[in-house]
């Protein structure tokens, strides 16, 4: 019975040496990296003089990209764990409205309104996850239901309490609050002021802001995006829990058999997605100073598209947070870049459809390569 040992060659002659190109291709981020380079190259050649790469221009597409990144990180981890959340967009509208109603209409302190909203949203996320686990239904259906439920509740709550669908005045009540600046504030303002004083970056030359830099600092939104990407990447690739996320999405039953708490992993990922949506909404509410019942429309799809462009498989078990972040950057840069390049903005959707299709085709090809299927 030991013949297998004796006859085993040092290396199997039937396995072809794989080129490093091939190895690079089976990394999930590859599509994202190539896409990002192409997109930047394209806009650098076509829209260089439009102000897209001035400090203000960079800030403009960075903010949009950061928004996409925040929801993409949540959607990415959830997709790798094998589930979807289509209620992200409605969750954004819901949590924004919740903060506005609690703080402006009911007069709660803003910090309490924010914390309550986070708890509420993560509760809804947990409910989503629990329903998916308990009923065994596809998360697609369960969260589609919540897409409507949350949107409807948001509009109902706004109309029934204030008879408006947009609630303003948040900036005034957030004045002096300790928690609000973590979402609506700016960091490194001193550095930017100094760079402006030194004449390195553009400053206002007229008006009441004379002498102040055009870009005052890095918005907290971008800090959140960065922190979430680092956290997500660390969690997925460097921890025990990350291995469980892959396992839960790769084959839930196989994972259960070796003792991975699949249900807990999935529910936690639904909660994390809700958390990300809530971060998005809070930052948006603080930036605009208002909440609208129609905020976040279609965001769930934009998050999923970013994740797919970033190399994650729709079927779960494979993907990368860095890839999803790059997907989100491609998204943000193209959306704003078309504006800078003076291209009709409706073409953005055409681009979106095309790139989604290409990404999915590439992903299918990659999966075949990893698993060696024909």
């Amino acid at each position, binding site marked *: 019975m030991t013949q*297998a040992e004796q006859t*085993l060659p040092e290396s199997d002659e039937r396995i072809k040496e794989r080129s490093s190109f091939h190895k690079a291709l089976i990394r999930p981020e590859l599509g994202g990296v190539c896409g990002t380079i192409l997109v930047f190259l394209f806009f650098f050649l076509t829209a260089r003089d439009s102000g897209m790469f001035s400090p203000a221009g960079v800030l403009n597409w960075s903010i949009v990209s950061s928004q996409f990144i925040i929801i993409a990180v949540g959607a990415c981890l959830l997709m790798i764990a094998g589930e979807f959340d289509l209620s992200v967009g409605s969750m954004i509208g819901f949590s924004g409205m919740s903060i506005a109603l609690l703080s402006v209409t009911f007069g709660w302190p803003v910090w309490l309104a924010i914390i309550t909203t986070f708890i509420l949203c993560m509760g809804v996320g947990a409910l989503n996850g629990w329903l998916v686990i308990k009923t065994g239904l596809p998360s697609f259906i369960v969260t589609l239901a919540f897409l409507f439920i949350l949107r409807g509740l948001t509009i109902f709550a706004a109309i029934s309490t204030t008879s408006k669908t947009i609630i303003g005045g948040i900036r005034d009540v957030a004045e002096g609050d300790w928690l609000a600046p973590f979402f609506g504030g700016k960091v490194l303002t001193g550095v930017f002021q100094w760079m402006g004083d030194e004449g390195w970056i553009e400053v206002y030359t007229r008006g009441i802001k004379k002498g102040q830099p055009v870009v005052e600092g890095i918005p907290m939104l971008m800090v959140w995006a960065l922190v979430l990407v680092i956290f997500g990447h660390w969690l997925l*690739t460097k921890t025990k829990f*990350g*291995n469980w996320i*892959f396992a839960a999405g*790769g084959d839930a039953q*196989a994972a259960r*058999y070796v003792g991975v708490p699949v249900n807990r992993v999935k529910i936690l990922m639904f909660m994390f997605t809700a958390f990300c949506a809530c971060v998005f909404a809070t930052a948006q509410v603080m930036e605009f100073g208002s909440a609208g019942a129609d905020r976040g429309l279609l965001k769930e799809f934009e998050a999923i598209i970013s994740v797919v462009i970033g190399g994650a498989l729709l079927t779960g078990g494979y993907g990368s947070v860095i890839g999803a972040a790059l997907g989100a950057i491609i998204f943000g840069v193209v959306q704003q870049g078309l504006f800078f390049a003076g291209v009709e903005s409706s073409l953005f959707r055409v681009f979106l459809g095309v790139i989604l299709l290409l990404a999915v085709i590439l992903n299918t090809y990659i999966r075949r390569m990893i698993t060696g299927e024909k």
Partner: protein
Amino acid sequence: MSEPLFEMKNVETPDEAIIKMKGIEKHFGSVIALSGVSLDVLPGECHCLLGDNGAGKSTFIKTMSGVHKPSAGEIYFEGKPMNFQRPRDAISAGIATVYQDLAMIPLMSVTRNFFMGNEPTKKIAGISFFDHEHANEVTMAEMKKMGINLRSPDQAVGTLSGGERQTVAIARAVHFGAKILILDEPTSALGVRQTANVLATVDRVRKQGIGVVFITHNVRHAMAVGDRFTVLDRGKTLGTAKRGEITPEELQDLMAGGQELATLEGSLGGTV
């Protein structure tokens, strides 16, 4: 049904058995999947569990590995009565199960699969990290012991052959201290050479003092490695026989329910 061709004895269980299952019954609603199955496993033996489709083999091993709770019957693990609530309980007691299709996750690397559910961690600045370096080393070493040369531990399991996947799963179970290794039809989807490799692995594992429960409906595979043979039919144990006490033909007939197959076999010229 007529009398069995071979009378199997219900031998009194030796005391050193790692696990002893007595009169296990399992009912799913009105369906009686198991109606009194008994089996015990000694250290270092390969106990083959044979039976045709629907005989209750799968239900029985799922009871053994904590997936199902038995409706009636007793389980003794190392002499103590046991009551597994979850698969996790059975795993921590030392009962590892390798399922035919569900052993590995094809999209994940060999290392990630190997340590799935048992990830090694190291602390850096108070934060717990997955210890990839250690995990990769252990995986490479364990695979080499089992006679598989990996291109790299990052290689996805999907690139391995069916036999290699089974071997990785077995190596994993052994590495994590299994006392009982349950193999659910490990050879049923494999080619000749791969089957030989898996059977060789079973032999290697047995020599380490681990009790192997080998589920199959292929008598030849069972005869190749089995020390004892238990035949299940319609949710009941027909009995247990030791190696040398029973011929492959007798086993085959028992599995198929005696006389009926004998007639069938006659018309096929004894080729089944």
